[in-house]
């Protein structure tokens, strides 16, 4: 499966408080959360994001609170993929669990520019910057994580592995 979109680029340590501020956590409705996504770091994001677009960030993306509302907000805003140098561990789990595609690729962060058009293939891990023609390879997922993704998320995986 592959996705294609325009890059929104941010720095290091993008925390879940700026992805979705706590003042909006009284609801977990994806549409509501999406309407405030990235509000405290980039007030223009919601206006400019289009279905398929890609967030590109530095290290420790999604640090801070365990709120699953953060990957839900990003996914519901239309973003098809988050590429980062590294992810904070709770965000990493939450993204896999809610089905928000993520890729770790420090080289992509170093070289791809904001506004570039990129294409990424989840099966091969290849990220291609269509604007500049350069390609990058993301770190592969461990086998076990692939199993969760292939099962359709943690819920489906748990259902098939325990008596509900």
């Amino acid at each position, binding site marked *: 499966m592959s996705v294609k979109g325009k890059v929104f680029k941010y720095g290091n340590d993008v925390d879940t408080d700026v992805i979705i501020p706590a003042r909006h956590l009284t609801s977990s409705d994806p549409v509501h959360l999406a309407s405030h996504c990235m509000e405290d770091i980039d007030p223009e994001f919601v206006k400019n994001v289009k279905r398929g677009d890609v967030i590109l960030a530095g290290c420790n993306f999604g640090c801070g609170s365990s709120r699953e509302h953060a990957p839900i907000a990003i996914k519901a805003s239309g973003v098809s993929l988050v590429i980062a140098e590294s992810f904070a561990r709770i965000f990493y789990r939450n993204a896999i669990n809610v089905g928000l595609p993520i890729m770790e690729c420090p080289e992509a962060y170093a070289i791809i520019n904001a506004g570039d058009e990129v294409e990424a293939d989840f099966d091969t891990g290849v990220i291609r910057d269509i604007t500049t023609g350069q390609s990058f390879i993301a770190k592969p997922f461990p*086998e076990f994580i692939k199993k969760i993704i292939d099962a359709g998320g943690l819920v489906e995986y748990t259902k098939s592995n325990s008596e509900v």
Partner: protein
Amino acid sequence: MGMTMTQKILADHAGLPEVHAGDLIEARLDKVLGNDVTTPPAIKVFEGMGARKVFDKDKVIMVPDHFTPNKDIKSAELSQCMRCFARKQEISNYFELGQKEMGIEHVIIPDNGLILPGDTIVGADSHTCTYGALGAFATGVGSTDLACAMVSGKTWFKVPMAIRVDLARKPGPYVTGKDIILHLIGMIGVDGALYKSLEFFGEGVKELSMDQRLTISNMAIECGAKNGIFPVDEITLDYIAKTNPERFANKDYKVYMPDKDAQYDMTIRIDLDKVPLTVALPHLPSNTRDASEVKDMKIDQVVIGSCTNGREEDIKMAAELFAGKKVADGVRCIVIPGSQRVYRKALDEGWLKVFDDAGCVISTPTCGPCLGGHMGVLAEGERCVSTTNRNFVGRMGHVKSEVILSGVPVAVASAVMGRVATPFEL
């Protein structure tokens, strides 16, 4: 190859003789917890899966503490959702506002004797790592992980590498666990321990009370750590004997020490006598400074409380420092005892009177302002010295407000002086 404390606990909970950093394992859970923000989405997932019963009604803990007493109708509905589920599932460790066991989750859960050394715990709250102070493995997860853990009593983990933190000597006057953990975060950065365990050792450990250790483990997440764990000693066992006499008497806990040849990715030594009174300036917990070097930084508000610094020792320290002093003109100081028990202690000991005389606001236990929920949200341009755990952009309110993190002594001194100050100036 030897294992760290964390790896040994995980191996036992996975039923494996040994594990190695990087292994993906499925571990049995002793406790699973959530709060009023994270549990309602988990309930939706739980019910969506067609699940009927939680795996063990005595091992699931639910605490409405974030937006409580409820700040608006929507937050009341979140609490209601969790309350109804807890009743239906007969969750034995659901805590209700006003009960004497109630308060902020990471203050009351250890205090109610629900965590024992060697336990494995996941919580849908990033500060679940607090319980590492008791020699347990505890880490934060999201709502879907919580839902699945409530169904199966198990979850998957990637076995972490570890950083060894050797604490040497004794802390100086007014230097608390908060200064120590801020100092460490300042050294290694907010991703300095990403995916790793922090394991604390050294002669300095015995200088730290349980409340101080809980503060240190609480903020392990602020440098990206998966968990932050202390070895079990006399202080831990005294605490367990007090909080859970029955299971203590039955020796219903397990003490883990690392193997002699345990692999640590890195060793950091901290001489506690050299740790200054430390503050973290906006907007990252790693942006630390010696508090005495921060000059002329005027403030509008002070918050004393939270899962980081709302324990009995914190509130007692605040009362001792506030005695006979007044909150500066133009400053609001909000004191939030972390639990009903701490509140009652403060009432019985006369600490509340000291706070009232000093001109402080006294709040019922709540996470409230720490995450910009309620009970002290900041306006544009306002600055707050806070004993909480995060100073991210917009964390306590307006996107152009500022939070400076500190321990209790610096927070009290700042409230009295009206600027970032140290207790030596009082």
